[in-house]
């Protein structure tokens, strides 16, 4: 029996804008029903990658297959299976919540009783039934985003692509939004591909792809990425941080050392000696902490920091190119 086509298969997918290379070449396989997060600093190519997979941009090179359908040659077949959520909610403020959903259902080709049922189900699923008759412009940002999720899922898509869906949401609405997406996945087997700047949101997904400067710099399960940084991370701040970071090599196995604006983050693994004593022996330390490794550490290590920090600020005992974490033969999520 043939294995089902993956939800997404991208092969060297890239895009240029004039002379700017926005996305170098994305190699990626996303299995059906999985959740994959795309992380990276602003301008890394996340949105370009998502728009290419969503058939809204033409690739400059490579290709993408969505459920086996070519994203360029078979756009209509791809789009029928897609639900899209953009950075800004795509909701018409002059229409009510119900009218927005009805409009979205119509755009996906649904009409009559089918559209009516789909809209009613989406309202129920997202808890928007009580606000169905409210003009969208009267909704708060959180409710607008939930309406946007309802809009994107009204036609029961097999693949949801969400570009920074939680930007500007308070924790309560963020949580509600992820609950909705989890339910989509659980109940309908929807595959989810999303980008985010909130790295904790990506820690529970099946696979994380880190982009920087239009290239994939790491791709793996979150746990695997985090273990590559170390099981624990030592944060050291203060003028003597560099010296203290060096001293840790005498008492622990240092996996990665990353310089940030504030000081150093040192990833360590395995058994360790008395870190506090090693660091405490170094003068001019203003802060010292030990905590489990997070995706943020992976992000800093692989992208060289946030807010346009140059890549050269990150150093590592394993090198910075992410080799050993992804490759053509390791694209499956």
């Amino acid at each position, binding site marked *: 029996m043939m294995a089902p086509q993956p939800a997404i298969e991208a092969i060297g997918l890239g895009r240029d804008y*004039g002379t700017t290379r926005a996305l170098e070449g994305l190699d990626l396989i996303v299995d059906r029903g999985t959740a994959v997060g795309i992380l990276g600093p602003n301008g890394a190519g996340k949105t370009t990658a998502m728009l290419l997979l969503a058939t*809204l941009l033409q690739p400059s090179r490579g290709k993408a297959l969505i459920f086996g359908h070519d994203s360029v040659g078979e756009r209509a077949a791809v789009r029928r299976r897609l639900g899209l959520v953009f950075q800004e909610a795509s909701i018409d403020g002059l229409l009510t919540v119900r009218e927005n959903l009805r*409009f979205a259902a*119509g755009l996906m080709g649904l*009409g009559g009783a089918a559209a009516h049922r789909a809209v009613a189900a989406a309202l129920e699923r997202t808890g928007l039934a009580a606000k169905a008759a409210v003009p969208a412009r009267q909704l708060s940002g959180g409710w607008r985003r939930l309406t946007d999720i309802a809009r994107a899922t009204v036609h029961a898509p097999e693949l949801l692509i969400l570009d920074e869906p939680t930007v500007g949401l308070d924790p309560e609405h963020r949580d509600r939004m992820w609950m909705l997406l989890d339910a989509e996945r659980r109940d309908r087997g929807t595959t989810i591909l999303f980008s985010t700047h909130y790295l904790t949101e990506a820690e529970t997904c099946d696979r994380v792809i880190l982009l920087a400067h239009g290239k994939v710099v790491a791709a793996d399960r979150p746990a695997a990425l985090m273990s590559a940084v170390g099981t624990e991370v030592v944060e050291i701040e203060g003028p003597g941080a560099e010296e203290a970071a060096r001293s840790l090599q005498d008492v622990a196995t240092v996996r990665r050392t990353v310089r940030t604006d504030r000081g150093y983050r040192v990833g360590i693994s395995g058994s360790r000696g008395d870190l506090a004593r090693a660091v405490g022996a170094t003068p001019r330390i203003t802060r010292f902490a030990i905590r489990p490794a997070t995706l943020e550490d992976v992000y800093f290590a692989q992208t060289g920091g946030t807010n346009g920090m140059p890549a050269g600020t990150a150093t590592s005992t394993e090198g910075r190119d992410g080799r050993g974490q992804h490759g053509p033969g390791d694209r499956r999520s």
Partner: protein
Amino acid sequence: MGAVNTVRAIVVRDLSRAARQRSRLLGGLVRPFMWLLLVGTGYNAIAHVDGAVSYQAYVFPGMVVMASLFGAMLTAISTVYDREFGMLRLMLASPAGVPTILAGRALAATLVGAFQGAVVLLCLPFVTPVTLGQGIWAGAALLLSAATSSVLGLAVAAPLRSVENFAGVINVVLFPLLFLSGALYPTGGMPLPLRVLARLNPVSYAVDLMRHALGQPTEFGVALSLVVLVATIVLAFALTAVVFDPEQRFTFRHRPARS
């Protein structure tokens, strides 16, 4: 069936928006009535056009076309707003494809333009006697006029990148189309270059067809007007479908500044 549902969704949405933007709707209706009542009354005293009982009666077909022109074109050009505020990308992500999306926009704009023209047309008995046959003919001419205006509006909107150009479009496109159409005065007395431009202006043929429907002397004849208007609709739609860049919204920030 999917494409029909998509067109219907766009039409319903655009009509709902138009109905809820009452000030815009009223503004579109005030313009022709201002001309009829204020300018027309004043001109009645000083202007006499051959074949028309009064300037107001002469200008009436032009006012119907004016109402449909502004209503349809501005609705079609509001595609730029949708592009700017993210609704167009939703439509572009539809499986139906760009031509279907454009058809939906054109149909919605046609209906808005036809409605605004119809409101003016319904006031015709207050200006000049009219038969039922003339009214039906005028209704058909109005639909054709609105359809032409909507497709021209889409063609204008296709290359526009931002709403900042919107006011400029009204001045540079809409007013010349109106002033060179014979809606307000006969074009026969204009200098040759302007007369040529008037002949190239599809709105001239919409006005002429409306004059024919309402029993006024015409310049081009029904057949020529019909051919020109239908050809304009077909060609402008095809041109829009070709020129329309579905990626424009997404590649905007990567392009050098250009108005």
